[in-house]
């Protein structure tokens, strides 16, 4: 009776996930495979085609690079900010967190247009650079990899701060006092106690940021243009411009594989760095 009630309660969510997530993903992955007799590679021929194309390899590599940089920069900036915020008195802490989260309150399109205004040829950044004499002519910033990275870091640092403040606050003050009583200065204490204990949070943050930037669409579309095509924008182009559904399915399946692999690798790294983390 109790078991039945449990199943009944779980059924709406289970059904929704089955029909809206599991089945569509299965169909997409299924669509990405070729027929057995086709080409040298049989059913994985579409994947072989993907990796045979220099352009597509470039898109994949660029997506890795951008997501990697965004993750590293967000981790560093987020950790530094969170470290300061976690040490503030409570009233100041809540103010700082609200301020840090502010960028998350605007929509992605509005935000990207703001970047267009800032980074364009006639944009504010170029005006300032020329007015101060740092450059003679306008610098091309829009539609570069840098623009995409900057815009993504801007949105992911707040996320990282949110995750890390919670983690850092949960490290008992006692542990740092114990480490200093044993002769560890502030720097040694940070690297030997705070950082290892923050690893679970750093991993969660890194996975979140890496997967979100690896799969992002709007930012690279608006600020990277076609020259800086990433997997997200390439997927959109395959599916909705070229109507190449099997090709789009291959892109989607590769993105899925990368994300699953990332999560698995990161969990292993976490366990290596901090045996407490699971």
């Amino acid at each position, binding site marked *: 009776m109790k078991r039945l009630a449990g199943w009944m309660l779980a059924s709406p969510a289970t059904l929704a996930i089955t029909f809206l997530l599991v089945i569509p993903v299965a169909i997409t992955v299924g669509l990405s495979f070729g027929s057995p007799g086709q080409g040298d590679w049989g059913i994985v021929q579409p994947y072989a085609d993907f990796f045979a194309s220099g352009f597509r390899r470039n898109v994949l590599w660029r997506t890795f690079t951008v997501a990697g940089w965004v993750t590293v920069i967000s981790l560093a900036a987020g950790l530094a900010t969170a470290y300061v915020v976690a040490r503030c008195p409570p009233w100041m802490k809540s103010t700082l967190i609200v301020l840090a989260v502010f960028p998350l309150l605007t929509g992605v399109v509005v935000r990207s247009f703001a970047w267009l205004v800032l980074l364009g040829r006639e944009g504010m950044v170029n005006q300032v650079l020329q007015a101060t004499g740092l450059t003679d002519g306008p610098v091309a910033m829009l539609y570069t990899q840098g623009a995409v990275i900057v815009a993504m870091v801007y949105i992911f640092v707040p996320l990282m701060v949110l995750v890390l403040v919670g983690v850092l606050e949960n490290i*008992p003050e*006692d*542990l740092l*006092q*114990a*480490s*200093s*009583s*044993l*002769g*560890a*200065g*502030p720097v*040694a*204490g940070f690297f*030997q*106690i705070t950082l*290892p*204990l923050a690893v679970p949070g750093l991993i969660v943050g890194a996975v979140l940021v890496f997967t979100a930037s690896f799969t992002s669409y709007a930012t690279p579309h608006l600020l990277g243009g076609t020259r800086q095509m990433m997997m997200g924008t390439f997927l959109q182009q395959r599916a909705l411009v070229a109507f190449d559904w099997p090709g789009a399915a291959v892109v989607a399946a590769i993105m899925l594989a990368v994300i699953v692999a990332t999560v698995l690798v990161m969990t292993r790294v976490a366990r290596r760095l*901090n*045996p*407490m983390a699971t």
Partner: protein
Amino acid sequence: MTQALTIDRITAHYGTTKVLEDLSLSVAEGELVSLLGASGCGKTTTLRLVAGFLQPTAGAIRLGDKDLTRLPAHQRDIGLVFQNYALFPHLTVRENVAFGLKQRKVAGPERLKRADAMLDRVGLAHLADRLPGALSGGQKQRVALARALVIEPPLLMFDEPLSNLDAKLRIDMRVEIRQLQRANGTTALYVTHDQEEAFSISDRVAIMHQGRIMQLDTPEVLYQRPANAFVANFVGFENLIPLQVTTRNGAEITARTAEGAALTLSQDQLGPIPDAFTLATRPDGLQVTATGGAGLPATLGLRTYLGRAYQYQARAGALSLTANGPLSQPLDPGTAVTLVPNPEQCAILKPE
């Protein structure tokens, strides 16, 4: 190696609240001194000041001839044992113990050898590769002790180290702490709110109240000769009887209460007695006798059963007293009796 600790007239504030005022205390080489008091009395604050987690607003702290007052915590070289152990959860037991040696740049093999030797001394060699999360409370406290001892600090400090352990373990651990401290001859400062614990392991105990030391002496003196009403109450002298000397006859004196009840006391037994004083007794030191003899006429109130005796709440004039009577004859509320202080269990408090 071991050194004397001197706390010289320190004052400390939390924000604008003064928590310690003009506190002085010295701990001799190899001595164990406890700070004993209820929460908020300033005992933990004193420890935090010595550890360097808090800065005094006035005064100085010295260890041997080294002035610690402005030294950052990590340069003070003090072994500290925390109430909740504060073991590093991501490091194994061995790495926890070796942590202090690592900061002192002791080479790897030497470091492990010394950590293992110390773990052996606290009987935990077989758990060296575990993480702290897998240990019991008593084992954690042993690791914390080993971690503090392995750096061979000139001063060891304990912040309520046993209060998270169960009663039986608490007694075993305090014996163990005392043995290790004695064996190493390390100077130690021990903070606790448990009187039995403080008295059992300390050379001297400082009883603290509202940021001041009320009395600092050996447990024996504190227990038998409290210097003031606060300490007397703290160590169980529940009855405080104000008296005025009326006649002196050599060592014998006669003193009366405000109601006129007379007691005869001997200065040979109790030491010099001033003209106005307070006689402090424990419930056991106040005998319940039939009316008529010399003593305090009183009326018994509530009777409670202690196992070894009956305890009575009694009224003698304006005084509320607690006395223990024999199990052989339970007395009912309302019985008129005479309470006679047993001089061997009394203390004389001078007016404050």
